[in-house]
């Protein structure tokens, strides 16, 4: 017996939101097919406050002009937590985004969101992953109170949970990470970096900052240290990793292991159809601190992937191993077994 299958709901085309640490990377991302790029100012107002990275006001203005000329959007991350008694540079950053006609600002701090909603009513607000809004009640709090239009979901939920969240919070949009560096802790709720170095993602915009990193060559290989703590040792034949605290090797119960996570990168190319069906509005690629070559390769791959899924074609088989950390990939928290 044959029965007609109900036609599947038409898939919504997700926006591809791509990282740009410099104007050159912004152009690379857009030329490779980004719908949006996200950027930050060259100071501690954003969570990728890395040496030599990010945009000054002139560069942002030019970047926005270039993006808009190609039909792409520019989102600006002002996603650290303003210092008590000194909120001025954060307020200035939000005001400049409004003035330069950024398509949205990505904010994490309640106080700053409150300020933005009051003083810049026409500026579109996105909730940063650093706010760690992991459930519908938290998300609705930001939407009802401040008119947040989109929330970047913390990397703690499974695809199934994301679908359930989307069903409960519509029409608030969700954005999820599809590729790149992977926080294994709930973002914005992690003080590991400041515990070791005094520099924190929330306050200073840098996790495991380069200023506190040291590599030492020994006869056995390379030792990487952060704030004086050994984070890992690599044999000469082993691929090395950046000493991000949660990707280090530690001893627990007398056994050395990657206790928190291996040096690895999130890669969801294989589960893109599931994420699209979960009703996600935008796919985010991590890596403002990576170069143009990374941006071009990853954006190109995900452009092909998303377009293939929407056209009902099979997923392209694209090898991104060579640009992932430790040459390894994971689908992270999107699959329950990861927990």
């Amino acid at each position, binding site marked *: 017996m044959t029965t007609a299958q109900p036609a599947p709901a038409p898939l919504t085309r997700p926006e591809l939101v791509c990282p740009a*640490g*410099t*104007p*050159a*990377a912004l*152009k*690379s991302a857009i030329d490779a097919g980004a719908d949006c790029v996200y950027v930050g100012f*060259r100071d501690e107002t954003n969570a990728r406050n*890395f*040496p*030599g*990275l990010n945009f000054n006001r002139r560069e942002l203005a030019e970047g926005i002009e270039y993006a808009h000329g190609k039909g792409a959007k520019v989102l600006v991350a002002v996603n650290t937590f303003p210092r008590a008694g000194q909120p001025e540079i954060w307020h200035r950053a939000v005001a400049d985004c409004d003035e330069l006609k950024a398509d949205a600002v990505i904010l994490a701090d309640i106080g700053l969101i409150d300020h933005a909603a009051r003083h810049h009513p026409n500026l579109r607000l996105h909730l940063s992953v650093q706010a760690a809004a992991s459930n519908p009640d938290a998300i609705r709090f930001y939407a009802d109170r401040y008119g947040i239009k989109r929330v970047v979901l913390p990397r703690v939920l499974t695809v199934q949970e994301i679908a359930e969240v989307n069903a409960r919070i519509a029409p608030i949009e969700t954005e999820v990470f599809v590729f790149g560096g992977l926080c294994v802790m709930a973002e914005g709720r992690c003080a590991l970096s400041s515990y070791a170095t005094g520099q924190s993602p929330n306050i200073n915009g840098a996790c495991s*900052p*380069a*200023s506190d*990193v*040291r*590599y*030492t*060559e020994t006869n056995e290989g390379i030792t990487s*240290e952060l704030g004086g703590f050994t984070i890992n040792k690599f044999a*000469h034949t082993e*691929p*090395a*990793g*950046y000493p991000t605290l949660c990707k280090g090797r530690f001893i627990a119960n007398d056994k050395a292991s990657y206790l928190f996570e291996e*040096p690895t990168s999130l890669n969801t190319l294989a589960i893109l159809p599931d994420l699209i069906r979960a009703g996600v509005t935008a796919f985010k690629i991590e890596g403002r*601190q*990576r*170069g*143009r*070559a*990374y941006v071009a*390769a990853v954006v190109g791959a995900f452009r092909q992937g998303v377009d293939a899924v929407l056209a009902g074609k099979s997923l392209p088989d694209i090898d991104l191993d*060579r*640009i*992932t*950390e*430790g*040459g390894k990939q994971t689908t992270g928290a999107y699959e329950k077994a990861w927990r």
Partner: protein
Amino acid sequence: MRPGQVRANVKPVQPPFSPVLLLGMALKPVRPALLQPVFDGVLKMLRRRHPDILDRMADYASKPVCINPVDLPFVILLDPNPDDPRLTVRREIDPQEVAATIHGPLEVLLALAEGKVDGDALFFTRRLVIEGDTEVVVALRNAIDGAGIDLINDISAELGPLARPFRSCASAAVDLLGRIQDDIETLRTALIAPAVKDSNAQNARITQLEAELKTLRKAARRGGVA
């Protein structure tokens, strides 16, 4: 020795067998001073066409970086002081003089400068080794990546009326290098083939010994006496 500094006689990255290495051997008798005008020209070009680089390096003005193309017989010293930037070619460098050193084959360093390869990926796979102050290296990497350097375009723009002949020479040279690279690869394979064969045989022998050892250990655990 301070941690993270280069030991005098250590080559952290083995130079690949390439045309550059051969060129390096050929350049060995040349005094670095003779090459200095080339680097003066490069710096002039960078300052004119990519002022952003020094701008992004502003916080690291007093932190010179040594760039060490491991396949060439000289190193390059970059002093990023925005008021008086310098790019100096030297035979060698005392690690105490610089904040950090970047070691890598010339081909990799040039690709990195042009943003054609991902610096992190190179580092993860050990094709690039950095020592010393990681922060200044990250800043330099970001500054250069952000500049959007295209060496052939940049240099020809500096040359004015000579641009067109330079361009055609340069692309011919790139083609030629590519072809030489293939030939060299063939040569390299031929040269090391006997060694590879030996090493493969040794590996097989080691695997066999490991397996035997495992069996013995298991037996020891179970029966007390192997």
